[in-house]
């Protein structure tokens, strides 16, 4: 996983609540067997509308998505995170994320930042009024900075450390091999097995 320390880029406001992962990447894209090439599927239905915010020339190349509450609800598809990253987003800001989406994003190095709804709205307004304004998401200082906005955000220490170091979870867990083996040795005999050994 790529490490995330700090990122500065232009923001794009997505003024919708409850953006579910079916909207982020529709199901027919899920037939792909790779982790890349999902950028054209991102918000596919909405992008047919020339007025949709991602289609506006002024927001081209933006890398910070500022979304409404309850972003990433619904299906667990990690493809939603890949699609946002393939398109070029480095961070998503919202007042509330669905749990699975948030877990998936942090595992892939897409920073999801939770800010109070009024701060989110201020950032959206800023991006609408001045699409060239830059927003900095600083994971080291746990701050979001933009003209007229300075907001602290929380992220649990462990997730933050993994992101800052770009650490891969599996390698970390495999260091606990002996603890896993010890646990396996004491599992009760009645636990189900999918195949008979």
């Amino acid at each position, binding site marked *: 996983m790529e490490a995330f320390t700090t990122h500065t880029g232009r923001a794009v406001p997505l003024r919708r609540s409850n953006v579910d992962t*079916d909207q982020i990447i529709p199901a027919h894209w*899920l037939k792909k*067997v*790779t982790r890349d090439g999902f950028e054209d599927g991102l918000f596919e239905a909405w992008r047919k509308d020339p007025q949709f915010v991602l289609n506006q020339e002024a927001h081209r190349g933006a890398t910070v998505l500022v979304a409404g509450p309850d972003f990433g609800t619904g299906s*667990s598809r*990690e493809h939603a995170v890949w699609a946002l990253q393939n398109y070029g987003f480095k961070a998503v800001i919202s007042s509330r994320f669905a749990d699975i989406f948030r877990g998936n994003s942090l595992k892939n190095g897409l920073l999801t930042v939770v800010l109070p709804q009024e701060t989110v709205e201020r950032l959206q307004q800023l991006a609408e009024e001045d699409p060239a304004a830059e927003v900095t998401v600083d994971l080291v200082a746990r701050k979001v900075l933009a003209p007229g906005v300075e907001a602290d955000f929380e992220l649990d220490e462990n997730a933050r450390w993994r992101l800052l170091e770009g650490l891969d979870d*599996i390698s970390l867990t495999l260091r606990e091999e002996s603890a896993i083996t010890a646990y396996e040795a004491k599992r009760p005999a009645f636990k189900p*097995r*999918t195949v008979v050994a």
Partner: protein
Amino acid sequence: MGRTLAEKVWDDHVVRRAEGEPDLLFIDLHLLHEVTSPQAFDGLRKAGRQVRRTDLTIATEDHNTPTLDIDKPIADPVSRTQLETLRKNCAEFGVRLHPLGDVEQGVVHVVGPQLGLTQPGTTVVCGDSHTSTHGAFGALAFGIGTSQVEHVLATQTLPLAPFKTMAITVEGELPDGVTAKDLILAIIAKIGTGGGQGYVLEYRGPAIEKLSMEARMTVCNMSIEAGARAGMIAPDDTTFAYLRGRAHAPEGTDWDDAVAYWRTLRTDDDAAFDAEVVIDAAELAPFVTWGTNPGQGAPLSARVPDPASYEDASERQAAEKALEYMGLTAGQPLREIGVDTVFVGSCTNGRIEDLRAAASVLEGRSVADGVRMLVVPGSVRVALQAVEEGLDKVFTAAGAEWRHAGCSMCLGMNPDQLAPGERSASTSNRNFEGRQGKGGRTHLVSPQVAAATAVLGHLASPADLSDADVRTPAGV
């Protein structure tokens, strides 16, 4: 201080606990399907890793599979590649697979319980959010992303930060004609699609204890629609009776040991939940959704709400967008909404009791002109049972299509889709924009409401049907 059911199951699976770090939890059962696994197997291959516990892993094909002509090659080359990728991966890594055409094939959340693999007090994961279904057995079961699928394949564990717990107590008794689906839709409308966020929900109380295992699965299945990570119900005699004798249920002294342990899996009287919600079952009625998220629902007897009636600005905006997408106007009675398609199936309502319920409404009646009704059993076993009971004949005699098992129109990854602007009454779990096909409009309903809707051509419950809808039996 006592512990809740979820905390007990959690504690029993901690492999390693350290200050300031997530707990490392052991996973008892890992379910795989074709959509969320290819990139995970790829990751293993790249890192030169094996599947640690093939004996705790099982795969089936469901999301992409066709429901017609299953003996012919799959027409869509991309779907075919995905299924072939799963087959290759399972062969290479030694994972048990039930492919299309196999008697144990079906929707992953129908297959696990019916094999008896889903058991009380286990941890169950799958790269699919409706893994919450398995919580009906008192399992801690939740959906994971593809990176976590890879993690479980490689280590049989997951590092997880603890969840909060919420009690949803359903007092009283469900009135006649009110089903588990109506109950969960009403719960979601009450707490909202974000209401369960960060929580494991425990459904409890007299109305829950009375539910069959299949009805409990319907309730737990849609926990994710309330934003929760998981839903659970304490195991009891209903649970044990369902499991006994199933292919992977414990036997002999193992059975006795298991039941003795399972009986300890109840929230202690002095345990505290982080949040509590109480619902009075007696106040519930058949429930349908009118909008584009599962929280936008109302009793069938209600009218389409006026967005202006919402105080919260983002809810108001969401309602406006939903009405526009759904092609509905505020104040329109829900009962007057006509549909083109009725879908009975999915991991929410594709089990045998659901098919029986729909068939009992359709028996001797006909699907309305201009309405197409698809009945898609949740698994091949469910289909076989339905055929044995003659339910398939009831459906086809009524003019419905009897299809092969799979996810089908629940998400329209296979050819079963709504056309733009088409409207469905669907027993599935998501009414998102385009979920059942681009531009398609979905109303979530119970199997009973689905069947009555098919007969009348507009949203309806069995109580709306009259004897006049019954066909005159042939020869009379």
